[in-house]
């Protein structure tokens, strides 16, 4: 009989390498270790917002939540008259098992979130409703219609639900050896423990049953054990947090590790039940904070517990065509569905957001594509109508989500609960758009949310049971039922990202008015606004105060960014290193440090940090670019070329810097140049020749020479010749506001334009520049400037002198950083004394045959004044 290639996908919600690593080292997760040894492993990048039903639906569809439609933990009932835990009806896209159904393959699905009501697929679905049981041991727990498909499977697995009241000390003590010390009257943790453990055992029992007794091609089993245990017990995980009483720490400090170890025991059993021809994938949707960022007091915002979710989850895969014991990089949740489709040699929908993770395969076959699976007609094992399940406002499930803190206790008044749900779902959609950098769509929704009018809490709302609940949230009569603060916070972030300074200030002001209890940290936003305004030192001051009050990695990172902007690279390096000490797996911190090492000419370190950034996030063009820079400087030209190529490919928008760097590398491979050489003596198509320097360094003189030499000059001649520049200034008015608008630079192609040195950094990287930088003795420059503005040329303003000196240093660094810039220094005095030699050099640099005689003849040596 021909062997079938099967795929088993195991979901471990919130599993995190930070906990797994030490357990593997101690030999306490032997099953996962076995899988890693014969397979691949790596990080799994999550998405924003990191809410599990959204994320697992992305895993199943390969699409982002704006496309698949699952936008939160709860959904509106089809008749819009109530709310309920999210069901499969929210999902608008076909999942893997729907596609397999259409293609004649058999799937089993157990516990997937959301999977209720069970879809009528070819195979078995045991939905996420199966394991949810009432806490009351005397309550009846009938298996609801729609809990599984086919209904006939019910008789085989109905006894596989474990009830919380069945949990015994033999189950509790391995997790909580001092459970006898718990005062169960006051501390209800054991109840939660029993519920969470029994639910996962039920999922596992149904899963193992189906694995061994049914024929299947694809199987997916989802466990929430680690996530739920972490939400309940991570605060007690070592190292002990100051605010945690020693007595509670002593009781609960082993629970989180216990959850991982038990999950591993279940994996061991699962691995026994599959054949060698089965590919096993174990993955999580996000990680979980286990260090200093653990949150003890949750903010009151919806789904606040997701704040404890970490950016990286885990991924392990092993199977017949999977590489052995290799680390893989850059995987995202969106990549799982395309990768699994590819394993079955099925085409990937071009409307899927992810890619096939080809790196994990031994034999890498070219993926096939179709426009979209959504357009394929036929039977996909989906529900035919979504209105038949009105009985699903399941109180127990809602209660669990409330207890975990994922949702607030729904309001007694159903119309308020509906309104809040509508707003939450819209807000989540805006956050998904924002996460995809589609700020336009995100803003549209957020503006709608802040402009809507909402009912206010009335006196009657503060009567009875809800009084305490509302007061605990700091609410009072007259407050809006919908808290608009989160919407303003997102609008503020978007405005800052889009450099909309006025809007950012407006939203910040509004937030400060709304947040009367000053719970929100606004220092980041304030610092960013100040930066946009160019008030760098004020921004730095705010961040330093924030750092002194409560140091965190992001503050250090922002401080580093400011130092870098100030060209203070040693300070920037220190700040980034501090950020990494606090959070070692943030790719952007590694990338920032790599870039800083380039500026400090430490190219080996730069390459090292850039590589780590890429290890963490593969689709990171900036890190590939920095790696290219480092490798180029180290002399590994071919490898640098590869890095630049990757950087230029990775983003849909054009990576101008990477493309120009690639051209340069091509030159280097073809011609032997010194590594630091910024001169390529050849004409570049559509190049812009820039004459630059400090004011009074001879820029007008060079412009005049170029004009006479035959190069077209971009000037509007608005500034007329005067005694300081008797032959004219050759200026172009839009240059003055280059820092605000550089869109006109295209007009300068194949021409020469004068741009004063401080504005060079605002050049658009999409063009090629040949910069002729005029150098003149600084004392002469300052004297000449003093004279021009009617001041005593003999009084030398020291501060100005120092500032110019520093500025020239910055220019030297800037030119090295810009692959699209070729750069020569031309000495002013030389120009006057050895004019023909300078003219010839300039002509060669530009790569055009200029009229050297005409250039030489136009120079009036009598103009050389203020010489030292």
């Amino acid at each position: 009989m021909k062997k079938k290639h099967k795929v088993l996908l195991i979901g471990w919600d919130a599993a995190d390498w930070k906990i797994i690593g030490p357990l593997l080292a101690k030999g306490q997760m032997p099953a996962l270790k076995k899988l890693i040894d014969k397979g691949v492993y790596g990080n799994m990048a999550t998405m924003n917002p990191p809410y599990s039903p959204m994320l697992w639906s992305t895993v199943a569809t390969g699409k982002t939540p704006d496309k698949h439609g699952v936008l939160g933990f709860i959904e509106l009932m089809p008749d819009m008259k109530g709310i309920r835990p999210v069901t499969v009806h929210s999902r608008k896209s076909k999942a893997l098992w729907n596609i397999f159904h259409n293609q004649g393959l058999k799937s089993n699905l157990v516990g997937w979130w959301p999977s209720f009501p069970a879809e009528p697929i070819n195979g078995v679905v045991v939905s996420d409703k199966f394991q949810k049981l009432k806490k009351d041991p005397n309550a009846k727990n009938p298996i609801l219609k729609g809990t599984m498909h086919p209904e006939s499977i019910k008789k085989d697995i109905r006894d596989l639900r474990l009830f919380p009241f069945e949990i015994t000390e033999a189950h509790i003590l391995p997790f909580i050896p001092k459970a006898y010390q718990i005062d169960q009257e006051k501390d209800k943790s054991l109840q939660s423990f029993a519920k969470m453990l029994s639910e996962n055992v039920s999922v596992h029992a149904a899963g193992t049953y189906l694995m061994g007794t049914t024929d299947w091609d694809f199987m997916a089993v989802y466990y929430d054990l680690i996530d739920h245990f972490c939400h309940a017990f991570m605060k007690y995980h070592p190292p002990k947090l100051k605010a945690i009483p020693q007595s509670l720490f002593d009781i609960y400090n082993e629970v989180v590790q216990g959850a991982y170890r038990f999950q591993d025991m279940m994996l061991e059993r699962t691995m026994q039940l599959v054949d060698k021809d089965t590919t096993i994938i174990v993955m999580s949707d996000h990680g979980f904070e286990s260090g200093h960022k653990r949150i003890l007091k949750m903010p009151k915002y919806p789904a606040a517990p997701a704040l404890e979710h970490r950016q990286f989850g885990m991924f392990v895969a092993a199977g017949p065509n999977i590489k052995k014991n290799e680390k893989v990089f850059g995987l995202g949740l969106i990549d799982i569905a395309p990768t699994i489709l590819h394993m079955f040699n099925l085409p990937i929908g071009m409307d899927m957001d992810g890619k096939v993770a080809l790196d994990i395969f031994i034999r890498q076959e070219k993926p096939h594509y179709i426009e979209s699976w959504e357009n394929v007609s036929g039977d996909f094992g989906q529900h035919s109508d979504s209105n038949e399940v009105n009985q699903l406002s399941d109180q127990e499930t809602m209660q669990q989500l409330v207890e975990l803190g994922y949702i607030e206790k729904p309001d007694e008044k159903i119309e308020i609960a509906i309104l809040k749900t509508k707003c939450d779902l819209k807000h989540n959609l805006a956050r998904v758009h924002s996460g995809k950098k589609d700020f336009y769509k995100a803003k549209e929704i957020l503006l709608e949310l802040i402009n809507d009018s909402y009912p206010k809490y009335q006196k009657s709302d503060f009567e009875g049971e809800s009084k305490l609940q509302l007061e605990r949230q700091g609410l009072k009569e007259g407050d809006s039922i919908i808290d608009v603060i989160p919407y303003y916070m997102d609008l503020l972030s978007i405005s800052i990202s889009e450099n909309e300074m006025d809007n950012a200030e407006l939203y910040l002001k509004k937030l400060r008015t709304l947040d009367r209890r000053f719970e929100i940290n606004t220092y980041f936003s304030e610092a960013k606004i100040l930066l946009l305004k160019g008030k760098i030192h004020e921004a730095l001051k705010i961040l330093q105060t924030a750092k002194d009050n409560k140091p965190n990695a992001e503050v250090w990172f922002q401080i580093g960014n400011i130092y870098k902007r100030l060209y203070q690279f040693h300070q920037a390096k220190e700040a980034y290193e501090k950020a990494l000490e606090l959070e070692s797996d943030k790719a952007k911190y590694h990338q920032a440090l790599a870039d800083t090492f380039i500026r400090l000419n430490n190219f080996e370190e730069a390459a090292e940090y850039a590589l780590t950034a890429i290890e963490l996030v593969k689709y990171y063009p900036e890190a590939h670019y920095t790696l290219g820079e480092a490798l180029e400087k180290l002399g590994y030209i071919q490898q640098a070329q590869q890095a630049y190529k990757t950087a230029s490919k990775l983003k849909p928008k054009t990576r101008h810097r990477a493309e120009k760097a690639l051209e340069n590398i091509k030159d280097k491979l073809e011609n032997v140049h010194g590594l630091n050489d910024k001169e390529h003596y050849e004409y570049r198509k559509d190049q812009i020749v820039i004459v630059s320097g400090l004011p009074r360094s001879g820029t007008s003189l060079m412009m005049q020479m170029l004009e006479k030499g035959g190069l077209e000059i971009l000037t509007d001649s608005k500034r007329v010749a005067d005694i300081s520049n008797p032959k004219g200034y050759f200026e172009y008015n839009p240059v003055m506001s280059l820092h605000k608008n550089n869109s006109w630079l295209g007009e300068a192609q194949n021409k020469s334009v004068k741009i004063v040195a401080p504005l060079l950094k605002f050049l658009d990287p999409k063009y090629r520049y040949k910069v002729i930088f005029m150098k003149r003795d600084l004392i002469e420059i300052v004297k000449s400037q003093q004279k021009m503005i009617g001041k005593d040329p003999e009084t030398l303003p020291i501060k100005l002198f120092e500032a110019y000196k520093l500025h020239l240093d910055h220019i030297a660094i800037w030119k090295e950083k810009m692959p699209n810039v070729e750069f020569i220094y031309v000495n002013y005095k030389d120009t006057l004394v050895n004019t023909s030699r300078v003219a010839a050099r300039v002509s060669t640099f530009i790569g055009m045959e200029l009229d050297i005689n005409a250039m030489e003849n136009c120079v009036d040596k009598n103009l050389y004044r203020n010489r030292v």
Partner: protein
Amino acid sequence: MNKNTIRHNFEITEKGSLGSLALGDVGLRAWRSVKKEARQKRKNEKKA
């Protein structure tokens, strides 16, 4: 076809264990069967 019939090489007690729960369907059923037998035994002993 049922592959879920592997033999376990440890004793299942009435109080159960994480090991038997980790075995999934067979472990859970085996444990419940042990519990049932123990209950029955006690019942019989009481009657006797």
